[in-house]
């Protein structure tokens, strides 16, 4: 085992040199090829890195040159990053599933002369890019399949480059090492292009210090050691993979495994059995869905066993993991479940050895989160971004919540601006956006505080909660924060509610438009003898109003628990007579609410929500599916929802 305090190299190649002294025989990476896990020792990795670096340097790659890397997670591609860094160059990984134009922007902006492409698919993209970016001199590939007939002057096998590098190293063994020694911690280690929902991607420049300090802190935070098993399956261009697989791996010295192909990740996960695991919420969600579907297809005995023990797990699992007191009977019951259900299930999912698992990127549904925790998987949330070298807040063991994202780890300072925006300062704060000083100045203050663009607050426990994008957050007249999307998402967790629009910016209180979910409410209506002929009739039914009112009051109660949000409780609401529809321009094609259109179309209804009327007549123009225009008219009831009292707030 390597003591992390011992590894004080300033750059990754320097760290590699140091570790080679005593760890050369340790497995550093694994890759499944031809059905067998092939292991690369650190010594082998090092040899290839130096050989490729020497060959690359021979082809004219110099200090501050960039090396664009496109491909799935492969040991050789990680090696190529180290080779570029060895020469004082900068690796720029690109998302392997991007189309040629997207990569072209990166290649162009990073002024890359050299590209490492994993296989024919990526080489073809690189060649397409080359037509627009004549600056590109050479393209190196790892997998020669289908590439025999390409121009060998431009498209070269990475092995050929390594072979020429080995000849150079034979003549001058110190050729690469002397370059490595020139590196300093403040040098640029990598440029990561953020996918960027708006405008052009920005190249985030991270230094070795950023990555190394962050990796050391993160390793210390979760006691990550050289004995971890990690599967590197998320895109290399994403900062998380860089931190979790590359930086933390090199610092801690654990072995990183690369899956055979993107389609085999689930099987490879099971074979490797990682101890440290990261996945975005959608992965956890789809795994859970497949488990539930398979259980529904299972026999009655299995299904009832599963249902029974999942109830036990829900009651006991998370408490056991958090070290809370649990009765002996519950412990025994849970142990039985572990033997019969949880253990085999975790084994099937490849999660039986997980010691620390993280999710981040977007909100994870509380049920999903608690499902994994109740199975005894230490799933935690973190909040981060590329500009911070991932970590802004993390959940420490024992203090894991589904609705918040934890506390700042040592070294990170987090502050909430007056407009609710989260800003932070940490050792991981990026150097700059590459060739984009305006954007850098907009995001980062001179004293290194970075604006996240996310709105959030620290809850009463001191955990950070992220609620919305900062630009969407408004204020009520009593100056408390109004986060529409947060409220809407909370309401949409109810199956009966399909869509919600909340209003409250510059108002005295919060109100809402509700769209019922026809399937869920229709089903409920059948079971409760509510007769209806149309969506409009069902939506206007008094019992449906009561149903929705109940949902809203539940949300209000949970809002009242939180001093920051208690004034955002929904006082008045109405159920819309028609579904909000992209055809009418009320939603985007990806089903996001277009607030401006709603404000225009339903101005009268919004006024009615705030001026105390009990009903309001509305007439809307609609587009039918066959393209005809029509009008729908209705007299909508407006209801008041009970607001939880101050007393509850004080108690909480």
């Amino acid at each position, binding site marked *: 085992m390597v003591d992390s305090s011992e590894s004080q190299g300033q750059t990754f190649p320097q760290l590699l040199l140091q570790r080679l002294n005593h760890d050369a025989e340790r497995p550093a990476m694994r890759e*499944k*090829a*031809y*059905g*067998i896990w092939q292991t690369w020792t650190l010594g082998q990795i090092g040899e290839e890195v130096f050989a490729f670096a020497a060959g690359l340097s021979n082809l004219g790659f110099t200090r501050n040159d960039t090396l664009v890397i496109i491909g799935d997670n492969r040991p050789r591609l990680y090696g190529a990053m180290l080779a570029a860094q060895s020469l004082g160059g900068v690796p720029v990984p690109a998302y392997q599933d991007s189309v040629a134009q997207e990569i072209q922007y990166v290649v162009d902006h990073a002024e890359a002369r050299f590209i490492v492409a994993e296989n024919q698919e990526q080489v073809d993209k690189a060649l397409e890019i080359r037509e627009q970016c004549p600056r590109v001199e050479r393209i190196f590939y790892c997998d020669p*399949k*289908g590439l*025999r*007939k390409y121009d060998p002057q431009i498209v070269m096998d990475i092995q050929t480059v390594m072979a020429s590098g080995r000849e150079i190293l034979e003549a001058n063994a110190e050729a690469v090492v002397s370059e490595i020694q020139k590196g300093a911690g403040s040098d640029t280690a990598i440029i990561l292009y953020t996918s960027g929902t708006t405008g052009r991607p920005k190249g985030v420049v991270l230094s070795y210090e950023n990555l190394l300090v962050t990796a050391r802190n993160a390793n210390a935070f979760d006691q990550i050691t050289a004995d971890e098993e990690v599967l590197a399956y998320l895109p290399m261009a994403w900062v998380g993979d860089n931190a979790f697989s590359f930086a933390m791996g090199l610092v801690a010295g654990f072995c990183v495994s690369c899956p*055979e*192909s993107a*389609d*085999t990740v689930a*099987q490879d996960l099971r074979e490797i059995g990682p101890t440290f695991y990261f996945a975005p919420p959608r992965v956890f969600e789809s795994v859970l869905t497949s488990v539930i579907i398979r259980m529904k297809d299972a026999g009655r005995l299995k299904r009832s066993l599963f249902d029974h023990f999942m109830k036990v797990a829900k009651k006991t699992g998370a408490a056991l993991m958090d070290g809370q007191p649990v009765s002996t009977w519950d412990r025994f019951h849970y142990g039985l479940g572990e033997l019969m259900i949880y253990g085999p299930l975790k084994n099937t999912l490849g999660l039986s050895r997980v010691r620390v698992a993280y999710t981040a990127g977007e909100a994870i549904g509380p049920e999903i989160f608690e499902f994994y925790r109740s199975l005894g998987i230490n799933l935690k949330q973190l909040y981060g971004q590329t500009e911070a070298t991932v970590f802004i807040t993390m959940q420490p063991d024992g203090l894991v919540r589904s609705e918040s994202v934890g506390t700042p780890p040592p070294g990170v300072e987090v502050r909430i601006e007056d407009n609710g925006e989260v800003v932070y300062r940490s050792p991981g704060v990026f150097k700059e956006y590459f060739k984009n000083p305006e954007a850098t100045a907009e995001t980062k203050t001179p004293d290194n505080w970075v604006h996240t663009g996310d709105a959030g607050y620290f809850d009463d426990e001191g955990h950070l909660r992220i609620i919305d994008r900062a630009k969407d957050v408004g204020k009520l007249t009593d100056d408390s924060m109004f986060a529409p999307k947060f409220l809407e998402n909370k309401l949409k967790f109810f199956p009966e509610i399909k869509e919600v629009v909340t209003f409250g910016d510059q108002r005295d209180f919060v109100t809402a438009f509700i769209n019922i979910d026809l399937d869920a409410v229709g089903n409920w209506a059948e079971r409760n003898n509510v007769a209806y002929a149309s969506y409009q009739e069902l939506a206007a039914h008094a019992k449906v109003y009561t149903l929705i009112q109940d949902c809203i009051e539940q949300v209000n109660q949970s809002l009242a628990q939180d001093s920051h949000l208690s004034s955002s409780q929904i006082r008045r609401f109405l159920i819309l007579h028609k579904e909000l529809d992209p055809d009418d321009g009320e939603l985007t094609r990806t089903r996001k609410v277009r607030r401006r259109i709603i404000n225009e179309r339903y101005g009268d209804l919004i006024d009615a929500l705030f001026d105390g009327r009990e009903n309001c007549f509305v007439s809307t123009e609609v587009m039918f599916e066959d393209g005809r225009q029509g009008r729908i008219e209705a007299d909508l009831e407006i209801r008041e929802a009970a607001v939880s009292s101050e007393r509850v707030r004080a108690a909480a």
Partner: protein
Amino acid sequence: MSSEQATETLLQVDAISLSFGGVHALVDVSFDIRKGEVRSIIGPNGAGKSSMLNVINGFYHPQKGTITYQGQARKQMRPHDAAAGGIARTFQNIALFKGMSTLDNIMTGRNTHMSKSLFWQALRIGPAQREEIEHREFVEHVIDFLEIQSIRKTPVGRLPYGLQKRVELGRALAAEPTLLLLDEPMAGMNLEEKEDMSRFILETNDEFGTTIALIEHDMGVVMDISDRVVVLDYGRKIAEGTPLEVRANQNVIDAYLGVSHD
């Protein structure tokens, strides 16, 4: 495509006639397949395309005519001779072992290359085990080539149709064929699957130099990947040539679109 090397004749069919009772499936058909080319056999339904493939493969015995394969003329060829001689094929209706995994199915394609007797294979010890390891390695290369690692251990019966077709191609490739016969490799596939399959066919031709004869209905695919095309209609050869020549041929247009009788 490897037209530059496609000069030497690999297989020559001469005046083949085949009938089932009174039905004339093939009448006096002659053409050749050159080494290293992609040769397509096209024609409307019932034109005799599959029959032609079955004749080459030795499954049907024509009443008249000769087949010359690698310089050896023969009137009749039996399927296992054809296989031993380096002819592999896939079928119009997938003919895989549904209960067996992808890996095992492709492994059966190695059968003609296994030298140890059934006795040793059954015991799976000593030389037979060594041999199996060698073959497994070859099969893994085929799996890698066709990018089907994720279904290595999946029973073939559970796979979608497009993937089953790919496994069948894998089994044929495992035999390291000199001549690969593909009977409608793209039937019933969606566009993406067709593109994948076209790519694999071209790569097979390119990487291993395998000569390929295929039957296909999708004209776009045929025109894209073939070096030469032969057109059958009602059991007779009505045209032959490069895709461009065939497309412009009036007989072919008539056969596909019908002729007005006035």
